[in-house]
């Protein structure tokens, strides 16, 4: 490793007096100040202000955004999750709890389903491992990022809530149709 000695830069007289640099700094800040002032009158074409007026304006999340995990149904509105508990196993903060159950009737060719499926959003770290681990493509991290509740219990998303958030996704597996 070669040692490189960096010489402390020698300030010129003008810089040592500071006045020019101070004025330069003041001009820079006031430029931004007036930039935002201008933007206030023409908010649509704002140039300087970076603030987003949050509840009215919202960020357009990218498709790979990792928001809250949610369960999805196939295009026929059928449950995709088979309660294999891979997500529960892989979940680093142990946020997922599944109570598997067996269908009472044998009419369908799907045997197992989650009786209860709970994700504790106070534990969830939005890592997306559940989505990666899911062999049935039944759990996805959706663009939901605003979880505000006044009761801790509400942060435990049950099956109904998870399906409501997840909605329907085109399915390639269609395990209900044939096996």
């Amino acid at each position, binding site marked *: 490793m070669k040692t490189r000695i960096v010489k402390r830069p020698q300030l010129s007289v003008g810089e040592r007096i500071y006045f020019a640099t101070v004025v330069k700094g003041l001009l820079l800040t006031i430029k931004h100040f007036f930039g935002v002032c201008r933007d206030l009158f023409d908010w649509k074409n704002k140039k300087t202000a970076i603030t987003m007026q949050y509840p009215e304006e919202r960020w357009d999340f990218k498709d790979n955004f990792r928001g809250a995990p949610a369960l999805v149904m196939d295009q026929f509105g059928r449950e995709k999750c088979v309660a*294999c508990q891979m997500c529960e196993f892989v979940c680093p903060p142990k946020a997922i709890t599944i109570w598997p159950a067996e269908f009472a009737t044998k009419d369908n060719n799907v045997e197992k389903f989650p009786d209860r499926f709970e994700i504790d959003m106070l534990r969830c770290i939005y890592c997306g491992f559940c989505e990666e681990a899911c*062999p049935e493509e039944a759990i996805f991290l959706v663009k939901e990022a605003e979880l505000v509740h006044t009761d801790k219990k509400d942060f435990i998303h049950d099956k109904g809530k998870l399906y409501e958030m997840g909605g329907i996704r085109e399915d390639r597996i269609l395990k209900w149709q044939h096996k």
Partner: protein
Amino acid sequence: MSGTVNVTVDGKQVAVPGGLNLIEAARYAGKSVPHYCYHPRLSVAGNCRICLVEIQGQGKLQIACNTRVTEGMSYFTDNERVRKAREGIMELLLINHPLDCPICDQAGECKLQEYAVEHGSGITRYAFEKVRKPKNVSWGDKVVFDSERCILCTRCVRFLDEVAGTPEVGLDMRGEKCTLVVKGDGKLTSPYQMNVIDLCPVGALTSRDFRFKSRVWFMHFTDTVCTSCARGCNVTVGSRGDRVLRMVPRANPDVNHNWMCDHGRLHYAFVNDETRLTVPRVAGKGAPYAAAIARAKAILEGARGQGILAVASPFMTNEELFAMKELLDRLGVEDRFFLKPMGEGDDLLVHPEKCPNARGAALLGFAEAAAEWPSKEYGALLHFAPHEGADLPEEALKRAKRRILFSLKEREADVCFPLTTWIEKDGTVVSAGDRLQRLTKGITFEPTLVTERTVLDRLHASLDASHRPPDTAAQALARLAAALPAFAGVTWTRIGPLGMKLEATGAPA
């Protein structure tokens, strides 16, 4: 058959007992040969073909399970030819496999999964529609059959025929339609039928009781002993979150080989009973242990003049019985009994004594209760209620003025301590044939629960400040071994995971 023969496995020379097959012989060289249909306790079928090995001097590959070692034999378990053959077998086996591992209970302990990873190629070239076979077929109220997963190894067929003695299952049809069928109405009847679930190397046979309860990788496994009868079958208990989910047999050639009865296998529901007593009750109200022990002490001291009746339970471990014996010695109690539940037995494993430690209770000086109870009136009763079976008759209970009970469920008594079950504590029991075996703690049902040995020791210490109770079951056993000649020389490590025979008792094996 006798003597040793020298064989070369993958170039490594080993001496193995004569008469072994190549799978077992390979173990001596530290090699494992994959196998589905072969089971050391069943006859050889040789139909899965995954155990093919190359024997030097023989042109074709041979199945290792049905070939016995000969002097000077040299074979390869892991060369290019063998690997290629296995890969082909794996691909064939998986052609019609439904790949429903996500909902299969076998996942995680499935030989198909393991060998697919170890020996499979990872891809399939089969591009056609898979064969559909019946799924979720009920084989009675204990076993569920999935024909698509079945690889037709016939282990279950052979077990029911050769071990259980009830040949109920057979193969039906041929070729790709080949499947297992049950005789008659299609329901299994054998009291040992659930062993086929353990035997099945894939997920074709699953337990109705355990079905979808838990994935195996979530479970915590504890090696212990079944307590449903005096046989003391060695088992592995699977639990999750301090609740017992299943019991499977653990191989012990001296007790149960690889099997256990269905009754014992399903005999754990009382452990998970949420209505169990978890805190002591004093006069019908919940109380801390300290208060309950203080009350029990007062009752015992107050009853000294009037006599105390002590009734132990054959579900207690030797260490608990010894702690009780020490307490009774200290109190000078003469009348020590225990109740032995009896039932039906059979020739294979089921023992008529429906408790794990009746022999231990007898060795520790408790008398088997006769039909006639002493007609004396007692000042106090110290009674460990058995988990099941006949309890103390009502008139015997009434004969004591004060009652100190240990019970699984709440009962009317002056002091009622909660019992802990066999999976919640360490200890030893004396199984049939004077075999000393270890129980191992696997779960903590409730953190509030205190084991009986600790309660007895604390009660003892409250009566006698000089009593220094042992901390662990191993220490308690050492104390017991020092005090009783029947247990002379016994230590916790000497018993080992498979148990030992109590030589000193001189009883017939």
